């Protein structure tokens, strides 16, 4: 082979379009890998993806009903619970998945076109697709069985889901970087998620809280997301507490932090 043969594949990457094509192929490969790893050829994995959140919605809804708290302000109980749970669950799954995204996939880095950011992005897209599909399927089931009226602002709900999932990604990336110094962050995260489940509006809306508690719980951006989701879903509810700009500040803050830390500590995250 002569030296002039070096880089005979150069044309493939030399243009911006070529780079985009490579990026598209990488994401396509990562999605294929993630979906095959999660669901394989058996349908059971796919089935449980819907059954588990569906079951949780039923249980939480029944808990509220038996506690003498049916849906607030005329909101039907099942979609009321679904709004709170699906947004929180999607965020939590995204966080948990991103924390170990790179650490558990370092083998992918042997493929030279795959970068750490591709791995984060690939997992984000897979989780977003799953969360969106679960939400749509559960919504359709509720509609078919007459448990819910039509969502009032489906486009806003979609954008809110996208925002909360993106929030989960950047928060998870931040924890991944911190976790490269302090592995205990993973255990702390598990504990935090359990606490947040009860503080993020899955079981309640803000007006149901005692005024003294509201002020403190409203520091939690996930509670704002739950409030906004119910406002966009129901004609009966218009939140006086959910603040989109407050959520955007959290997302923006973690966006900057996540990418900064990722760049600074990339070596530690991939260290073997």
């Amino acid at each position: 082979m002569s030296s002039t043969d070096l880089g005979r594949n150069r044309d493939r990457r030399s243009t911006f379009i070529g780079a985009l094509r490579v990026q598209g192929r990488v994401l396509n490969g990562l999605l294929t890998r993630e979906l095959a790893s999660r669901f394989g050829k058996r349908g059971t994995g796919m089935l449980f993806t819907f059954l588990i959140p569906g079951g949780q919605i039923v249980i939480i809804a029944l808990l509220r009903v038996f506690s003498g708290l049916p849906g607030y302000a005329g909101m039907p109980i099942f979609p009321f619970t679904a709004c709170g749970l699906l947004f929180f669950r999607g965020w939590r799954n995204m966080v948990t998945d991103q924390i170990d995204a790179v650490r558990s996939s370092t083998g992918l880095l042997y493929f030279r076109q795959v970068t750490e950011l591709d791995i984060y992005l690939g997992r984000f897209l897979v989780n977003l697709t799953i969360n969106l599909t679960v939400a749509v399927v559960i919504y359709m089931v509720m509609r078919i069985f007459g448990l819910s009226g039509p969502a009032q602002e489906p486009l806003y709900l979609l954008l809110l889901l996208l925002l909360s999932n993106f929030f989960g990604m950047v928060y998870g990336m931040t924890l991944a970087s911190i976790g490269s110094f302090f592995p205990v962050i993973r255990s702390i995260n598990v504990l935090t998620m359990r606490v947040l489940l009860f503080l993020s509006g899955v079981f309640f809306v803000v007006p149901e809280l005692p005024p003294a508690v509201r002020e403190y719980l409203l520091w939690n951006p996930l509670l704002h997301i739950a409030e906004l989701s119910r406002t966009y879903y129901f004609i009966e509810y218009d939140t006086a507490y959910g603040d989109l700009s407050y959520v955007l500040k959290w997302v923006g803050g973690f966006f900057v932090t996540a990418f900064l830390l990722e760049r600074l500590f990339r070596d530690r995250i991939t260290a073997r």
Partner: protein
Amino acid sequence: MTPLITMENVSKFYRVKGRKHYVLRDISLDMPGGMSIGILGRNGAGKSTLVSVLSRAIRPNQGRVIWAPGIEVSWPMGFGAAFVGQLTGQENLKVVSRFYGRDWRDLVAQVEDFAELGEYLDMPLETYSSGMRSRFNFAISVAMDFDCYIFDELMSVADARFRQRAEEEMHRLAGRSTFVVVSHRMKTIQTFCQCVYVLHNGKLHYFDNVQEGIEVYERL
């Protein structure tokens, strides 16, 4: 001539009981382009780490590795870590075909033909024996069109028949691509490489005479 690989002040260490154990220590060199390169070193010298650093899967603690622009480089053949054990051979092929924009069925056909794994291609990689895994790794790598192939102790567990076929395939590839070969089999180095680096005490020593490099390595 454009260097194939430029290493600038590359160091890589692992912490062992709180102390830095250097595998690569402040290496700066240009690996020549247009020829195949052999890498020799005793067990534990750090050849696999070097290959991982060269292939970018592991980042050096210091310095950087630059490949000639536009070069398509393989993953290190023999490194099963690039594939997912829980996925079947076919599923892994599908992932790789997507990464490289290849037709999946075409890739499966080539690997089936070369690796002769039969219905095992439809089983998870973790069920393969080391020899089968080695055949799979080799077949999938050579089915791709790379400018440079990285071979790392690839054929150590393959049977004699497959080794012979693999060597024939390497001869075919040598006509159009270069290799970076890590091997304890001197015959492979002598056959395919035009220069050699010996990795010893964290440093790479260059020999443009392959036989001379082998002799130095054998005296270590």
